[in-house]
């Protein structure tokens, strides 16, 4: 869209910005693309770690990153042969850098992706998991109370994850008190806040702690893959249940927890038993008790009857013997 003469004049008159220096956003985007039109950028070879992968209609979308920068990439289906980018792989992407004006996003349109090894982050994560597994951190620990009076939940205050956990608990046991301890679940302060929250709830006196976070890419879940958060879970006296990300997200925190839900809703389910099941269990126990008592009484009545019968028989026999003796005495005399 061109800038009208009136606007140009007004900007120049009122703000002192020369009219001939003004460009539209679209023009600026075009200039960026013009600047990218260099052989080394139109046929770039970029090495990095694959993350945040998604597939759509056979095309592969992913982020290429290293420890200082990220770059969105797209690999169209026609360029995919035997390798499809996979989370955590170290790859070399060959393609053209392109600035997509409508989305305001720089991306690398790949025409070839070559896997060259395992990414740094994944390697460290794999090593951490292996180390903690060998130290027995993933062997499970405490039983999660099935009839909690109070459950502590750690989640971002306004996130769906908290309402998912709360609704799931309430659906199964509406009498449970829920204590939300808000904490950042991603970003620079997340690890520190999560550790503080776990320790605070552990001291607060709840029957179990649920840590919940909705889905996200591997970077968003990074705080849950740290030794610090895992240690806080391991050291808690209160049983911890996690519901972090989706089914496929196996975080260090989840592996360390006493119970792991595959989603926040599932974590709520694992933190409490359905009240109807417990009522049924009580009714069954009452029935069994009543039945055992009736049988006990019946056996006792039967025993008493047998004892009476035996006494009667003994008396009868004694009477016969006595009569026989009397008869013999009478006969002898």
């Amino acid at each position, binding site marked *: 869209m061109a800038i009208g003469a009136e606007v140009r004049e007004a900007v120049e008159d009122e703000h002192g910005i020369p009219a001939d220096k003004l460009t539209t956003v679209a023009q600026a985007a075009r200039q960026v693309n013009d600047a990218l039109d260099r052989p080394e950028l139109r046929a770039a070879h970029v090495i990095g770690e694959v993350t945040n992968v998604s597939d759509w209609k056979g095309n592969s979308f992913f982020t290429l990153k290293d420890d200082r920068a990220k770059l969105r990439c797209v690999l169209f289906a026609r360029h995919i042969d035997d390798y499809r980018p996979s989370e955590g792989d170290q790859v070399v992407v060959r393609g053209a850098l392109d600035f997509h004006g409508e989305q305001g996003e720089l991306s690398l349109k790949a025409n070839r992706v070559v896997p060259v090894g395992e990414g740094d982050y994944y390697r460290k994560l794999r090593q951490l998991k292996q180390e903690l597994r060998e130290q027995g951190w993933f062997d499970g620990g405490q039983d999660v*109370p*099935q*009839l*909690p*009076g109070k459950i*502590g939940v750690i989640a971002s*205050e306004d996130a769906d994850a908290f309402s998912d956990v*709360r609704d799931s608990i*309430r659906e199964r*046991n*509406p*009498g*449970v*008190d*829920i*204590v*939300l*301890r*808000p904490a950042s679940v991603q970003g620079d302060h997340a690890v520190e806040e999560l550790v*503080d*929250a776990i320790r*605070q*709830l552990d001291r*607060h*006196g*709840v*029957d179990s702690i649920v840590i919940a976070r909705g889905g996200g890419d591997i970077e968003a879940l990074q705080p849950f893959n740290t030794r610090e958060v895992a240690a806080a879970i391991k050291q808690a006296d209160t049983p911890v249940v996690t519901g972090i990300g989706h089914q496929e997200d196996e975080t260090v925190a989840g592996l360390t927890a006493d119970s792991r839900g595959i989603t926040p809703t599932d974590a709520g389910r694992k933190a409490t038993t359905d*009240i109807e099941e*417990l*009522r049924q*269990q*009580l009714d069954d*126990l*009452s029935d*069994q*008790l*009543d039945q*055992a*008592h009736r*049988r*006990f*009484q019946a*056996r*006792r009545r039967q025993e008493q009857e047998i004892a009476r019968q035996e006494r009667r028989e003994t008396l009868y026999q004694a009477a016969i013997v006595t009569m026989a003796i009397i008869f013999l005495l009478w006969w002898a005399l």
Partner: protein
Amino acid sequence: MVGAVSLDQQWRTTVEQAEELIERLQQDEMTRAAAADAVEEQENRLDRLRERLAQDDGSTTVLEQDG
């Protein structure tokens, strides 16, 4: 939670006691009078748990960060 008997502990204890009593009744380890008293007491405990399970007014509170 230190000191207080939690609802979960109360549940586990009551269920365990009921199961033990059923077993003792099955093994004829009691007199009739003792059995009647024990069964009545156990039924009272189960009723108290039923009352707790009937509560449906759980609260939701927010715990502020320490300090």
